[in-house]
């Protein structure tokens, strides 16, 4: 099962009102900054409370205003990777990854940390601190930390925006591999349509707190639903 999202929220001079669904694939939330993409991600993760709506992902319902369901972020089991990795500066890479697994025996945690370190090729920097490693390495550590607890879905907030192009390419490939290997829905926020085309099975086009169009990236590019979508997709 994929993601099912229906949200509305008003804050000061911005209102969000969106509805979309995806299969167990990589869905890109695409739009300019300030269109409500990150807000959507935070509400999926339970870090911000919607006024109304319903959020489900994997096999769980996280939020349902009608049924008064609102799981805290701790119980949603979603991997969330922020724009700048958000690693804990006082911990080594190894400890940062282990931080993603708050429960379990020491032996089990150690085993899973080793597994993630191998998977993300981090063995050389296991004892380094976040201040000593590159941007691409940081994002790999953040991914390993987000996935070690075997989340129901992975949420990525512009994970490559701080990276150079060659590194970015590698990371895009890595995310696709991760999605295939863990076989979970991935929701990725981006403002780069090239990234959407190279990575996403589905795209949700955001504009000023509304969804303008959803579909496969190729379809959206070939048949944009209106001039605004054409503008958003064509600009980059």
């Amino acid at each position, binding site marked *: 099962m994929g993601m099912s999202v229906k949200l509305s929220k008003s804050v000061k001079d911005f209102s969000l009102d969106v509805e979309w669904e995806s299969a167990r694939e990589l869905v890109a939330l695409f739009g300019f900054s300030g269109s409500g993409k990150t807000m959507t991600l935070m509400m999926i993760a339970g870090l911000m409370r919607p006024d109304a709506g319903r959020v489900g992902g994997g096999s769980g319902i996280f939020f349902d205003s009608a049924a008064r369901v609102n799981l805290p*972020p*701790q119980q949603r089991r979603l991997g*969330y990777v*922020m724009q700048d990795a*958000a690693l*804990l500066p006082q911990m080594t890479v190894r400890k940062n990854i282990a*931080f993603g697994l*708050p429960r379990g025996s020491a032996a089990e945690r150690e085993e899973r940390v080793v597994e993630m370190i191998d998977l993300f090729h981090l063995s050389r920097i296991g004892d380094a601190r976040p201040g000593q490693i590159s941007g691409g390495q940081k994002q790999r550590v953040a991914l390993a*930390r987000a996935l070690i607890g075997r989340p129901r879905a992975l949420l990525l907030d512009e994970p490559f925006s701080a990276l150079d192009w060659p590194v970015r390419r590698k990371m895009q490939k890595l995310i696709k591999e991760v999605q295939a290997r863990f076989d979970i829905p991935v929701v990725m926020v981006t403002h780069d349509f090239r990234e959407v085309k190279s990575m996403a099975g589905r795209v949700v086009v955001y504009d000023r707190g509304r969804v303008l169009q959803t579909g496969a990236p190729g379809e959206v590019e070939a048949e944009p639903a209106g001039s605004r979508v054409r503008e958003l997709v064509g600009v980059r």
Partner: protein
Amino acid sequence: MSGTSYFAIRLSLQVALTATTLLVPVGIFFAYILARGRFKGKELLDVVLTLPLVLPPTVTGYYLVILFGRSGPIGGPVYRLTGWTIMFTWEAAVLASFVVALPLMVKISRAAIESVDRRLIDTAYTLGHSETSTLFKVILPLARKGIIAAMALSFARALGEFGATLMLAGNIPGRTSTAPLTIYAYAAGGGLSQANTLVLLFTGIAAVFLFVANRFSRRVF
């Protein structure tokens, strides 16, 4: 140094150390709920906790006498139950120092807690860490420097407490005569050479603690 001066310095250090030990958990608790919590009466709590910073210590001391005196709403029941009153004991000096230094501990710790990157806290929650676990593994380690600065300044403030201590603990030689009270007594009674020694010693100790506070936080004072 005379026996009286020695006693005064020792008592002051003992009072300040005890007060600081109590200030750390209590101050961090209030700092945390003021920084992160959302509840009714938060502004009021903030004002009440800050008041001792701006009130004359004698006013703070007066309130404490009213509350903790033998017929006060807290001191009364304690006296009836145990026959003990905090008035004119060294514990009274601890209480006075605690209350007067609490605003410093809370304000500086709160600023340190608020300076922790919100995204690190949010990430910890999504990874399954409870609020308590996040407090101990993310917030306190990252706010460490500010909290150490808060401790050093609170200790220095507790050490120098005079007005509220005088109201609550009195100035009983050999019992509640802390260094600031003893200096006052020396100065008032013409014992200038003893006062000089105590004043210099006291200034040195306070300076060391300010130095520590500055080492750990460039933004405080």
